[in-house]
């Protein structure tokens, strides 16, 4: 399901606003964000915690609703989509990777991936996806028996096994040490390169920005800077 378009726009968001109503106070997580995401690119969203990056990613992924503004994915408007349309969108088009992996603890690595491939169209077999992330051998282990890096790689395998058009990663290395984090980033880089999956990766770690095609900085719910890396650094050369 990945796209072969070159430089086609996958996401177009305009005026995205998100306000959390916390009873007596209102928290503005996003304050009118405009963003385009191009086919096949690797975008890094940088920002300190509380800057609204996760909220942005969640709205792009159909996990949350915007308070105001529009998101257009290809030719459909996500902000107007019904619950079942969003479900269908997540099911066939989007892969998620979360900071805390969010694996289902009662399923093995293989079964965690299968839980997704079973409901997708034209999915990989779980073994193939797990081989892609370099986890050929430990596929019958339960999450509790895997290291953090391994768990995150299972989560990536789970996200890419359905061959999504977009891969949305929320602090994928946030819970990992740098060596393990780099292994995970290498996997994401490879998926982006080999499968051409449009990838948005959010992090507060500025060092990771070097591997992106484009880098976008968020602060306090607004985009403060966008720049294109002339030269991408391979993930294995990153250090922090």
């Amino acid at each position, binding site marked *: 399901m990945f796209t072969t378009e070159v430089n086609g726009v996958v996401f177009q968001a305009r005026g995205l606003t998100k306000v959390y109503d*916390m009873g007596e106070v209102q928290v503005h997580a996003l304050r009118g964000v405009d963003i385009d995401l191009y086919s096949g690119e690797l975008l890094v969203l940088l920002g300190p915690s509380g800057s609204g990056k996760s909220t942005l990613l969640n709205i792009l992924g159909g*996990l949350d*609703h915007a308070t105001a503004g529009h998101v257009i994915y290809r030719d459909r408007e996500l902000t107007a989509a019904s619950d079942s349309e969003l479900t269908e969108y997540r099911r066939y088009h989007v892969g998620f990777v979360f900071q*805390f992996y969010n694996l289902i603890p009662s*399923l093995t690595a293989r079964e965690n991936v299968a839980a*997704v491939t079973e409901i997708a169209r034209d999915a990989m077999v779980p073994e193939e996806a797990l081989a892609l992330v370099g986890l050929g051998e430990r596929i019958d282990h339960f999450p509790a028996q895997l290291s953090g890096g391994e768990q995150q790689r299972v989560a990536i395998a789970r996200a890419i096994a359905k061959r999504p058009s977009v891969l949305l990663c929320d602090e994928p290395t946030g819970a990992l040490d740098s060596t393990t984090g780099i292994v995970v980033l290498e996997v994401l880089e490879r998926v982006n390169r080999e499968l051409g999956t449009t990838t948005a990766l959010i992090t507060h770690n500025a060092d990771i920005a070097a591997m992106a095609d484009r880098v976008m900085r968020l602060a306090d719910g607004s985009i403060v800077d966008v720049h294109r890396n002339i030269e991408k650094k391979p993930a294995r050369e990153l250090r922090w």
Partner: protein
Amino acid sequence: MRALDKKLLRDVMRLRGVVLAIALVLVGGVSTFIMSLSTYDSLLLTQAKYYRDYRFAQVFASLKRAPETLARRIVHIQGVDKVETRVVAAVNLDIPGFGDPASGQLVSVPDRGEPVFNGVYLRRGRMVDPASDDEVVISESFANAHGFELGDTLSATINGRRKELTIVGIVLSPEYIYEIQPGAVFPDYQRFGILWMARAPLAAAYDMEGAFNDIALSLTANANVDDVVDRLDEFLRPYGGRGAYGREDQLSHKFLAEEFNQLETMATVFPMIFLGVAAFLLNVVIGRLINTERDQIAILKAFGYTNAEIGWHYTKLALMIVAIGLVGGVVVGIFLGKGMSAVYQDFYRFPFLQYELKPSVVINAALVAVAAGLAGTLFSVARAVRLPPAEGMRPETPTEYRATLVERVGLQRWFAQPTRMIMRHIERRPLRALLTVLGIASACGVVMVSNFQEDAIHYMIDVQYGMSSREDLSVSFVEPTSARALHSLQGLTGVAHVEGFRSVPVRLHFEHRSFRTALQGIEPGGDLHRVLDKDLKRIKLPAAGVVMTDYLAKILGMRTGDWVTVEVLEDSEPVLRAAGFARPKTFQFADVLAASQPALRVPLVATTKQYLGVSAYLQRNALNRLLEEGNVINGAYIATDSRYQSEVYTRLKEMPRVSGTVVREAAIAQFNQTMEQTILFFTMVSATLGAVIAFGVVYNSARIALSERGRELASLRVLGFTVGEIAYILLGELAVLTLMALPLGFMFGRALCAYMVSQFASDLYRIPLILEPDAYSFATVVILVSAIISGYLVWRRLCRLDLIAVLKTRE
């Protein structure tokens, strides 16, 4: 197998403690349901088969004496299928080694072949030789009460002559499933028994050759019982008929029917309550269980699982739990049902037992359980999937804690932080706290309802035998006799006080309703047998008018001041003639109607509170006047000096005119035994199951609270709280909720008991709503012990909380 199904199986394994506790609640509900209804159905089926196989008759009548030829005319009554005549006689018995007075009923068996009706099931020995005049077969309950063996003898006073009888067989009869002595409230197998004897010698002894004094009929398919009874009454009237009656008025059948009614009430009300409570709890606990899964639901949603798929996934989880509870409940229910049916088989002395579990019973239990499980599941899943996945993946912690009411009014300085946490947690989730409280309260109520009857029964005995029927003995005479007979009783050594009574079988009519009972004429100033008002104060019987058991007045729809029409079902002619009185008018209801005379109409002047039986009272001389007879009695209440009791018994036995004696102590013992074997056994089993449910509820509440708050508590441990301190936070909340639930549970239990009492009211007895402190304390103990055990189990889990995991994972 699909990955999600594997997840399901592993989740069930992981949650096995909770799953089992929920299933246990359901096992309690379902097994009570299965046990009760299958027992009831089995008894009905067995009774029906017993009646059919042993040809229990449909219409009965006794009379003074009629020629055998009359039977050939009776068979032509429209609606009558077959007719059989018998000779039946009341006799006094003298049982070797048994000092108390005992009496029996001699029933003839045909000279040739099996009886047409009311066949007997031969347990041991053989039937009597038709030619033998000293052989009897006796009922098994009577035999067991005295340890009679084949070949043993006992003597009977047959028509004034003492006769030695040899027991050749021991039998059961559908006609005497209950052997109740006339005048007694409950069967007393030691002092009253049924004996079958060859017809020829029995007829000879009572001058019944070519004649009969008892008749039984069966009916054709479409016959109307009332019409046949009326026609039969017309035929028998000239022969001293005592009023024919259908099966529903046959003493043993009626008693059994009443018992079955009560059983039906218990078998429907109890399990409905239990199953209802179990269903409610299932709903609550499954809902909470699903709630703890909300982050997994969010993940599944994030990956594109539809709400329907997620709903179905958790539905399967709920169905598995329900299935475990159902299978367990059915298995336990069948086991208990068979056991209980066997107890009842033994109690009712059915020769066999047909255990029956109707598929509909299982299906109904399954439907209720599945519906409750699904409701709990779908409600929670619906709530979980309504959240956007991004929100669902965050732990459910509404941040809106606030100072509780207690703190706002300025009492906070009295409470340490953990106590404030307890109070705030309860106040933050009032609905959840309320559901927990309701769950524990309903469990408490169930325990109370299963336990209350014992108190009520003791109270009944106190009222009946301590305040109302205060006599030590009551004797009845073979026939109505002049009140002078009292002098000979009074003169017996050991008799302290005697009061005569006149009792006459009647059918009371008011508007279109009627009821067959006895009209009791007692001494107005009598000290032994008292009539009580609703405050249990003694009512002085008025000179005219009748006082009825409140329950009877309700059956007849009468109020004080209404006039009841009395149809007398006794022909008193011969005795009065013998006593030298003028020939009185015989009263028959038909005559009353025909002549439309006001003669036998009596005003209802008051109602009396009585828990046992259904009676109507008036002054004895008023009854005598009503019957246009002289100073006549047919029984007496006696107070004895306990030192001379056996002498009194011996002397009474020697009096040929005394046909039956009811001993008060024996009646109480008998009453207790009856209650123990039926109701109390049932309630004991129910109380156990109620306790199981109670435990399930409390344990679930604690266990789920733990899974909801495990992270929070582990974090506190990391901060240096001891296990004891975090246990205080979690279990303190449970303790508060449990204590809040108790008073509510008492109220709920009392309401349930009131409902049971209203459902239990019958001709035989009405259970008063009496809840002694021990009913409350028993329920309290069950709940508290459940709470303590649950607390202990949760404590053990708290000791094993994984502190590292808390630090590692998200929040």
